[in-house]
């Protein structure tokens, strides 16, 4: 069992941070795409806050209280914490090594999946456009790991990146959607005084290396979940 336990450390300065709002069914979440020169990262702001607060005995009570409130009030939408298909994951994309690392966590246990940079075969539909955050965006579509994605990207922001594992277009992906499953839309872009691209491990968690296919297979098995777990469909089906 290969174990990785690295502490939180800065990887490189970032030049831009894009915030995305994600809606999947009844779940809401907010994500950051933090872009550096040779690497980028993608994670949930709420997950980061949870981990950061949980790393300290006093502040962890806040999280505990929120979780209890959530569990005790499943029917009260206001008590539901941010969640979604990729909520618990920290993604790191390294252009230099052409690799994509996913630090995920399943029922509190850490797993690390390393894969070659995912590549989507895009079909650009230049005559279908939208304005997002004031940027002119073009549509592109692809089928990636079992889901039909429709995205809008802008050539005005020349980075071949996007939310989650999506990217490789001639501009930033501002909007991504799988009909009936998920909608991800950019809500803010910052280029001034951005936080550096950082490897986060507030809880000093150890990550067990696992193959992507093995992980997906085990995780889609319902008996792996404890009682009352609300199972959220996964981003990747294959």
């Amino acid at each position: 069992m290969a174990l990785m336990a690295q502490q939180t450390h800065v990887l490189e300065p970032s030049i831009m941070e894009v915030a995305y709002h994600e809606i999947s069914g009844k779940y809401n979440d907010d994500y950051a795409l933090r872009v550096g020169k040779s690497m980028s990262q993608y994670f949930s702001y709420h997950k980061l806050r949870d981990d950061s607060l949980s790393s300290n005995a006093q502040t962890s009570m806040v999280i505990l209280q929120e979780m209890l409130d959530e569990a005790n009030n499943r029917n009260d939408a206001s008590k539901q914490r941010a969640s979604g298909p990729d909520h618990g994951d920290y993604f790191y994309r390294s252009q230099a090594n052409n690799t994509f690392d996913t630090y995920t966590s399943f029922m509190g246990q850490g797993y690390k999946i390393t894969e070659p940079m995912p590549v989507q075969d895009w079909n650009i539909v230049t005559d279908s456009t939208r304005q997002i955050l004031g940027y002119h965006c073009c549509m592109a579509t692809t089928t990636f790991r079992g889901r039909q994605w429709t995205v809008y990207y802008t050539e005005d922001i020349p980075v071949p990146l996007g939310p989650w594992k999506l990217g490789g277009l001639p501009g930033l992906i501002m909007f991504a959607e799988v009909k009936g499953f998920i909608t991800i839309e950019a809500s803010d872009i910052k280029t001034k005084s951005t936080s550096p691209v950082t490897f986060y491990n507030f809880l000093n968690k150890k990550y067990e290396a696992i193959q992507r296919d093995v992980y997906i297979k085990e995780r889609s098995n319902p008996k792996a979940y404890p009682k009352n777990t609300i199972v959220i469909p996964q981003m990747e089906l294959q």
Partner: protein
Amino acid sequence: MKMLKIICLLIFLSALSVSAQTVVTGKVIDDHGESLSSVIIKRYTQGHKLGGYASSASDGSFSIKAEAGDSLIFSMLGFKNQHIVVSSNMKPLTIRMSDGAIELREVKVKSDKVHEHGDTISYIVGAYANGNDRSIGDVIAKMPGFDVDKSTGKISYEGKPISKFYIEGLDMLGGKYGTATNTLPQGEVGSVQVLRNHQPIRVLEDFTFTDDAAVNIKMKSSAKTHWVTSWKAGGGYGSAHDGYDKGRWLFEGFGLRLKSDLQTMLTYKTNNTGTDVSRESTNLFCLDELMGEQPKSFIKLSVPTASGLSRERSLLNRSHTFTANVMKRISEDSQINFQLVYNNERDKAWGSQRTEYVLMDGNRIINNDLSWRSNSNNLYALLKYEHNSAKSYLRNSLSSDMTWLSQHLSETGTYSHAQHSLLPVFDFRDNLYVIRRYGNTLVSFYSNNSVQRRPQHLYVDSTKRQNLLQRFYSTDTYASGGWKLGLLSLSMKFGVKGLLRYLTANAYGLPDSIGTTTGKSHFGYAKLYASPQLEYNANDFKLSLSAPVESSHYKYSEDTGRNRLDISPSLHIRWDATSRITMNVHGSYSVEPLDFNRFYGSLIMQDYLYLNQGYAGYDVAKSKTVSYSLFYRNSLKGTHFMGRVSRSFDTTPYTLSREFSGEYIIIGTIPVKTNSNSWNSTLMYQQGLPFLNGKFSLRGLYSHTDSKMYQDGSVSPAKYNALSTKASLYLSPYTDMSIDYSVQYAYDDMLPENGNKSSFNNWQHTAKIIIPAGKLRFTLKGEYDHNQLMPSKYKDIFFADAIIGLTSRHIDYELGLSNLLNEKSYVRSTVANLTKMRSETILRGRELLLTLVYKP
């Protein structure tokens, strides 16, 4: 292989021949000659259409198909774009990109839900609200970063409770803002502003960076011209014990008036449906202020209650709460605030108690029926002055909290007595916080002082009487700070504490032989304390060490007093062994605070039966605890396990004594050292099941305690065991429909050294089914309790509830039917302190309630 090359060449040549395509290759570098990856290369055709794109590899190399005459644009964030016109037969290119400012157009958010300006974020209420939302709290709960606790109205932003709640920039409500969260109609609010890094004290602005957030409610301008109101009402009918209302009602009204320099808010809530409305007007800030040492309530009648039962099933109330808040701005820098809260609560309860005292020479049994009623009036008033300028800050709040509690308890049976207690508590406190700035130096002073007066009386059968007057003064003043050095962090708190208590007790009607029944004494202490804490955070290990030190001088009026120096160190280590296993070890040595409530000279009646006897001893209890816990999980297999074992060794310089003197029981303290050791263990196990999305979980809690008690002058050791387990099964046949079942088992026993073991078994089964159907939602609940009352006798109780909810545009309806089988009472037996006790409580009967919430 050779064949393949030829084919490739042919294809390549044919492509060339058809469209004169060429492949442009090369490398992208920056000003310093370093290769650049992820540079986007776009190819535009002569018709200015995007013809293709590529991006540079990690070594900066690229290749893109193009036609002669096309233009290639190289772009990358933070660099200036480069244009190249493609000609036929281009050699490999070297593209040099020069740095450029990252110029993204200034973005105006179109959705207009959120505006950000510096550290202030504004959320437009209309963008988050929908037809289901009534109060501003409902809407705030949906705004990103916010959480609202619906029962108390407490708001948190990014996980931290907010530090201030302003309405139109004025801090009218202070900590008691819960009522506004839960009742202020959202339709009248324009926006909610979050003031991040909010330093409510302006003099500190340059000195400290806070990550506290404050909330400012901006009303719609239309709301400033009239009273803003909201309403909720409900009615129903239920069966009840004689003496309690059969008709059920609830009503809530709210009004708010806002002017530029004056704000007023009024609320009124009433119900007899088992809801405790006084909770909303409790102070939501500074809970630790309330948790300081308090004088003991010596006079205490035994209210009929049963453990293991939820409060709303047995609360027979009639409650009224009225609140008024007025806020006036005096000048630019100062404001004055007046707050008034009045609660009236009349509760009733009926039940019976069977108490069996385990004695050497045969047990003593008291079997009584209880009829209890109480009337409580509480008036809270606060006057606060705040001066907040850049040079100095002064806040003084003066508050009074007055409670008049009158209780009547009539007991019939073994001993029949009519008891009446008057238990007023008058509490006045002043909280002063001053900060002054002298150049770059800050001088700050925090002081919390309180005075309490408890002139209390107990009347038993108009023949016996206890008068008890306690006066209590306390003060606490402190400062704290922290430093961080790499992996180490150190924090420190310094303070001074003082306390003074006067007690005058007079009991009338007790036999002279029993002991002193009148007395007058006082007790006080002064303490100097420092509490350092050191933390070390490494990869797999986390270690924290704390050692609070306290130097105290205690003085009781009847002796010379004593000085003490105490230290209570504790150590905690956590080790993440693998991704599946985590272990914790905790060790502590603690010195319990000296119990000042023990220092008095005479007997004080608690009720008709118990008499309290004081003891002037300055020794303190010490406790050594070691605990170990282990977590194991294999998440992908659905297995989770947690086990914890702790062992504690407690040494008390005194032993609890119980002396049977005629018809009285004297509870006191004897200066004999007691060692009481205990084992505690906890276990939790969860496993996923491979059918119907099923899950199974098991929890267990076990404790074993050895302890001693003095009864009638001789020592009576006893052993206690307590076990509590719960197993649950969850199935979800369809989405949103769920079936929950759990069974709980509790076992308690008590084994006196020279006596028989007594033990009780209790079972509780609960089931809940939720069926959603469009705008309707059905919830069915059942509970079955099987409680052991005697070795061979069990009592069965069955609860059933049904709720139907319907949501519409202006009105929400909820029809609830509770306690369908009209169970009358709940009984449970317990053991503790060489006593077996069985208590029975009358329940709220079958009840039908229709509630309407009007959303204007």
